[in-house]
């Protein structure tokens, strides 16, 4: 089976869909001739032509607005927001328009737009190239929110997102574009070829949205994570010696609550991990969901391990980042609680 990193897997998903479906078009800043600042669309304009892989003006609101119009006229636009941090100029078009068009017209109009955006820190991007704004989008009804943690999932989930009848916000954790990152920046980088998730079929396949995956079975505590944090959580579990079950959410909205709650009801403990800021974040929703469904089986308070409630600081990335030590400490705490 071919080995791919996450960039190649995303490129392959786009390639497969451009090939299969004439209504798929790509658009975004620098995605065409140049192939994207992260190379996710490399070679696709050469292969499919500049009519289907469009370089756009630097105007995220215009990109999403135009994509909605294209979607209404039967195309399936896949747009790239160069960094998730740049999504805010498009926020009104996403929240008030894209997410609600089907609802407000009682199904008469809709736009099946996929919005890709690289997210997360650890790349020296400072406070405008490091954010994880998924919680802002999970709060919006009418869109689906996806974040893969490895190349195999990235390709399968992106294909499913493009084929989905609903708009999807597709977050790409850019720290793991090239390899699985366990939260230790001083260690030598590990390539995806050393990870089973780097084995990616060349052809078409989909991974169903709204299905979480248990990536490590365990009995003492359930760790809920997604994106980069899946790998960091695995390192933390190894370090702590706790027999934790790690669940990779993969799709954040609509959420696979059954898999989560079944696990927590079994383990009796839950640690939630995300890189985004804490207050009002997606972890709060996970915590409430688990508490509502699993309260009588909980042996310890639910813990959240997150980024601090500050902007992402350029010079203090690793003090900010919820690394394996911070997660391991939480694992120990929930074990000591009962």
């Amino acid at each position, binding site marked *: 089976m071919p080995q791919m990193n996450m960039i190649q897997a995303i490129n392959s998903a786009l390639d497969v869909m451009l090939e299969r479906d004439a209504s798929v078009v790509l658009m975004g800043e620098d995605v065409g001739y140049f192939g994207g600042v992260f190379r996710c669309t490399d070679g696709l304009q050469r292969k499919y032509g500049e009519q289907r892989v469009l370089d756009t003006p630097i105007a995220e609101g215009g990109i999403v*607005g135009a994509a909605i119009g*294209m979607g209404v006229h039967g195309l399936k636009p896949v747009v790239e927001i160069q960094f998730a941090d740049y999504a805010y100029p498009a926020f009104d078009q996403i929240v008030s328009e894209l997410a609600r068009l089907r*609802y407000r017209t009682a199904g008469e*109009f809709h736009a099946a737009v996929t919005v890709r955006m690289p997210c997360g820190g650890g790349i020296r991007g400072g406070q405008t190239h490091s954010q994880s704004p998924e919680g802002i989008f999970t709060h919006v009804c009418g869109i689906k929110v996806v974040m893969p943690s490895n190349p195999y999932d990235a390709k399968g989930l992106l294909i499913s997102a493009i084929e989905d*009848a609903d708009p999807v916000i597709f977050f790409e954790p850019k720290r793991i574009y090239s390899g699985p990152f366990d939260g230790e920046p001083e260690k030598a980088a590990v390539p995806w070829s050393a990870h089973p998730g780097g084995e990616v079929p060349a052809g078409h396949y989909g991974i169903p949205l709204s299905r979480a995956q248990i990536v490590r079975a365990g009995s003492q505590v359930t760790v809920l994570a997604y994106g980069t944090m899946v790998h960091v959580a695995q390192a933390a579990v190894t370090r702590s010696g706790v027999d934790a079950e790690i669940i990779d959410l993969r799709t954040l909205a609509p959420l696979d609550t059954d898999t989560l709650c079944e696990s927590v009801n079994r383990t009796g403990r839950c640690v939630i991990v995300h890189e985004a800021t804490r207050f009002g974040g997606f972890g709060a929703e996970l915590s409430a969901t688990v508490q509502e469904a699993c309260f009588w089986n909980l042996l310890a308070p639910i813990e959240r391990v997150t980024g601090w409630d500050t902007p992402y600081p350029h010079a203090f990335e690793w003090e900010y980042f919820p690394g394996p030590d911070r997660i391991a400490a939480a694992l120990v705490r929930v074990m000591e609680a009962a």
Partner: protein
Amino acid sequence: MMRDSRLHVPHPPARPGQTPDFSYLQISPAGALARPEVTAAFTDIELLATGMVRVLDEQHQAVGPWNPHLEPDELQVGLRHMLLTRLFDQRMQMIQRQGRISFYVRSLGEEAVSVAQTMALRPDDMLFPSYRNQGLHIARGHSLVELMCQCLSNTRDMCKGRQMPVMYHWGSGNIFSISGNLATQYPQAVGWAMAAALKGEDRIAAAWIGEGSSAEADFHHGMTFAAVYRAPVILNIVNNQWAISSFQGVAGGEQRSFAARGPGYGIAGIRVDGNDFLALHAVTAWAAERARRGSGATLIEPVTYRASAHSTSDDPARYRPRDDWQAWPLGDPIERLKQHLIALGEWSTQRHEQLVAQLEAHVVECWMQAQQSGTMTEGPRLDPRTMFEDVLATMPPHLVRQRQQLDRELLAATQDVQPT
């Protein structure tokens, strides 16, 4: 030492109690502006963006190169659509005052914009309206009953009770949904037009916003994308002088016409008498032909006057003279077309009165029919359980659970017990 403020704050020429003053309005004589070829370079026609295309003169004659030479029966159809729009508005305003719908927006005084422009386009061209474009629906023959049922949020409401009144849509009539967030339809219309071009169709898109919301970023996005990709689209800024209580100077209209923004983007701009049915029709047909031939977008500024309140929620007597509209130099679009038809010998006061009576009866009949499907206070009511539909294409489990919870609440309400 503090100096006096040098900040310029625009203010309208007249506020309540003052004499209306439209001396700021630059008006070209009818027939004065040349009509260029539709493929003309935008740089060669910049005068169109600052002058004003007008066809009907003071003697009610159609003059000059922009005269579209429409047949009398087409003019009569246009008059009928405009009258029906006005009478529909009148009835709905009254119904709102009776408390039977929650909100309404009239298009009094600017009916020609929607009606003439729609009539100049093909039925399969896609229209992206603002909230004061009910004339689009009427000119394309959308049943008044459907429009009324939307305003009533009743069992026949196209929006299933999810939108405020007037936020219509009509898929089969090629009229897009109204958002309520202003100017969002501009880049969407451009994207639709880009898709049409990509598919090799010769359909075009047209969008309308007011001069007030031309200040939104989406205006800039729409213009930029239209220019970059030469999208086959007509972008209209309906300058009706007022955005709720703010006159057009607050939107940036003091120094330069709104149409003049077109050439700044590399797009043809045309300022047109928005109360002149013939001029509007001619300019829109020109822009449509230009778009279909691949010469790109046109920014049209119909200059008109919002004779009514912004909506049923504001009182214009609080921010402008009561007799402002009476002093408006470009008159009433319906009266002007009526006088033109009379001057042609194709209409009469008597026929006009007959038509008004006939249309009034039609509106009343439609209202009777619309009420059959329920009002806010009487008759059948939409099933509230439908509120969970169409959030996503397939209802996700959490919405199924929430609907079940609502079921229990509704059941408990009928049995007067606490929901479980």
